[in-house]
């Protein structure tokens, strides 16, 4: 399993945006979902997660708002904004393009 610090910044952004596409979520929830969906391949620690969340918020792609968690704790929930949704689509396309390009390269070798 790669060390979370080895996740490229762009990849982490994509993961977070994609996670929030499913609905607003707080920091711990984002981290849990990424772990779940990637089946434990990516574990995002607080030291990477929070800087990334704040960076995305500053770019106006997500917006934080205080709410209440499932076990009645105050928590900051992040939701995708309209520009964030557009950004996600862009990043998805980018990713697919890059991914298939890398794949083609790998396949051509064998």
């Amino acid at each position, binding site marked *: 399993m790669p060390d979370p610090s080895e996740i490229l910044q762009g990849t982490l952004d994509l993961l977070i945006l994609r996670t929030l596409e499913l609905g607003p979520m707080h920091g711990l929830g984002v981290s849990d979902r990424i772990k779940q969906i990637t089946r434990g391949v990516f574990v995002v620690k*607080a*030291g990477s997660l*929070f*800087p990334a969340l*704040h960076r995305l918020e500053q770019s106006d792609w997500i917006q934080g708002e205080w709410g209440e968690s499932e076990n009645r*704790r105050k928590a*900051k929930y992040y939701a995708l904004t309209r520009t964030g949704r557009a950004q996600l689509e862009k990043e998805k396309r980018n990713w697919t393009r890059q991914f298939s390009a890398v794949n083609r390269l790998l396949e051509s070798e064998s």
Partner: protein
Amino acid sequence: MSLTGRARNVFRLMFRKQNIEEDLEAELRSFLAMLTDRHLDRGLPLEEAQRAARLELEGLEQVKEQVREVRVGATFESWLQDIRYAVRSLGKSPGFTAVAVLTLALGLGVNTAIFSVFYAVLLRPLPYNHPEQLALVWTKLEKTAAPRAPMSGPLLNELHHRLRLFQDVAGIWVGNGTFTGDGTPEQVKVAFVTENFPALLGIRPALGRVFRADEASANRTVMLLSYGVWQRRFGGDPTIAGTRITFAGAAATVVGVLPRDFQLYFPADSNVPSEVSALMPFQNDIYKGPADLHFLRVLGRLKPAVSAAQAQEDLNSVAGQVRQTYTEFAAENLKFTLAPLHADAVRDVRPALIALFTGAGFVLLISCVNVANLLLARAGDRRKEIAVRSAMGASQGRILRQLLIEGLVLCTVASAAGVALGWIGLHGLLGIRPDYLARMPDVGLNWPVLLFIGAISLGAVLLFGLAPSVVTAKTDLNDTLREAGRTSRAPVTRGVRSTLIAGEVMLGFVLTIGAGLMIRTLAKIHDVRPGFEARNVLTFEVDISGYRRAARINFAKEWEAKVASLPGVDAVGAVSHLPLDDYPNWYSPYRPEGMTGDQAAGLIADYRATTPGYFRAMDTKLLSGRFFDEQDRANGRQVVLVDDMLARSAWPGQSAIGKKIEGEHLTSQGFQPVWSEVVGVVEHIRNHSISQERRGEIYIPLEQSPREHLSFAVRTHVEPSALADTIRRALHERDPGLALSKVRPMTMYVERATAPARFVAVLAGAFAALALIFAAVGIYGVISYSVSRRKHEMGVRMALGASSSDVLRLVMGEGLVLTGGGLLLGIVAAFAGARYLRTLVYGISVSDPLTYIVAALVISIAALIGCWWPASRAASANPVDAIRAE
């Protein structure tokens, strides 16, 4: 993000910082709480659950700091924060800050002052059109052994017609002239030039025009006035161009006025001073003059993109053609040499300036070393503070940056102080008035100088700021915290600091040796007897060029008698060329009796025409024979005096008295070779430089060679300058049309001749003094730091029976080892570097043992002073206190 969005963020960050911080804190707290809940759900007890959650978060403060770092505006803000912090932490140790800033400011100030001079004289292009194309052309007369001889008119003419790679060549010769007409007559320096000279330099006149080709003739005088003369003598008359004024008793047309800042930059041996009062074309056709009358200083302008080597080739081929045309030049094996104008003009001052610049660099290095040492010592004391900061979440980079910013703040303050100090120092330098540096008026704090200072300050920060920062930032968190005040372990930095101090001693030693050599040189120069006694002698010039031959002779005789009769006057005499004056020299070949023309080839002497009273007025010693007297008349027997230098080389082992010598006299038919009899031998007079005996001298009675240029020397038993007014009045009574000029004591000429040596010695001395102080402070700093670190050890030693003198010896030993190491390195460096000073010393060798010994002693004393204080403090400490101190 849009620009406005970004700006909004910065704004929000700065003014709503409190909110954002609280928000972030709450967010992370809730994250922790949820993690804790999760662990509680798994059945962990509360405390265990909280611990597990904290472990997972990996440091609340670290995460906060990481978030802060990604925020837009955070960088700007953290820089501000760092600067504020640096200022505060520097302010907290005012002693350290003051010493560091003062040390650096002195180092930078010295460099500001020296570089201002260095830049103005050596680097700044000459203020002419395309100065890089300008070069002097010297005549090399191989047989006469004159490598830098001026040129004759016909030779210049040959260059004019035959050179291919030059745009133009022009000649200049500076002599005297007198403004007559309205007002008091005024004798001034006039540059006689070929008509193309101003155009070749690219002079744009402030008024009127420059010369046209062939506009001067025997009965038409034209001139360009200097800006100063135009303002002073002609009241800045804006209509002066094209009008006629009276010059040397005749009408002359002013065609224009030179620009205000116009100066001539020629080497000292060309006798072209930087300031002249007028430019005038030669009135006679110099191109047709005698081919062997060498007087023109020749300036050429190369065609664009022609290199010096190509131009020299061009000159070589013309020299070849000239040797074929003129048999006398074939016999001389005449050659031409090219010397780029700027380099040639500064050739005498360059070695001194480079040496001083290097010295200033050393001073700066030493001051940087001291500040680095101070910072290292401080860094040692701050290890705990830094460990705490990194525990609080500051990243390594942030701490490094913080330390660098501290250096930068320190350096900015020091640079400002340094430039101010440099400015003061510069005015001190200008006060020494080294007027041999022709470009002194250009010296100032200009952009290149400030840029240079900025660059070296930055270099200094990197040098002394980075090293300690790296050492400190690497500090291991746990080790330092765990040390909990135990400081007896030798810190890593001690070796570094000791090396720095040894280097500092080395530099200080080299500087002290250099200063010692320069100071001894100055002392030697002061001890030199220049062949006359300058004290109590007043000198002045009288322009009698308007007089005919017989009138000149009469004037000199009568005027001498008149001045001698004035109260306070002991002796008076006149000479055609005063020693150490900048009037173009009179020197020519001579032939002693008993030598063929071939044997005498290459023999050259300085010629002087004097009145009988001259040597007594100057107190020049007669070695044998007699001085001139009343029998040496214009129509009498042709006699000369020679100096001992010439007598020794012409007639070694024999008496020169009664010998015949052939030399150049100003006869009624112009300059002619004449045989005359040596009637006396006088001591050598240093005409050109206090520190050099250049060539032998031949003295002719003024009556037998009445040169038109006359300087008087008056020996008084009252203050010489008190006589000036009396003499001025007396001359006005004698002839209101005569101009008196350069009324000054002879000591002034001597002072001017020793100015370069004094300039260098004063500066080198100041550098060495600074270096010594810095070295003492540096050693003090290192030793007292080391003593404070070893307090515990010292206490134990003393408790175990070591006496306080043992401790004293131990500590002093440490300092002396450093000094000794530095001295050894210094000896090597000094021997290697001393040869660069060879052209600067006089009367001593560059490896003068006395200087080296004294310098070593002085450095050792400075080191001892630096060690003594901390050592005696350590020795007098109570062992019990020392052990308990920690």
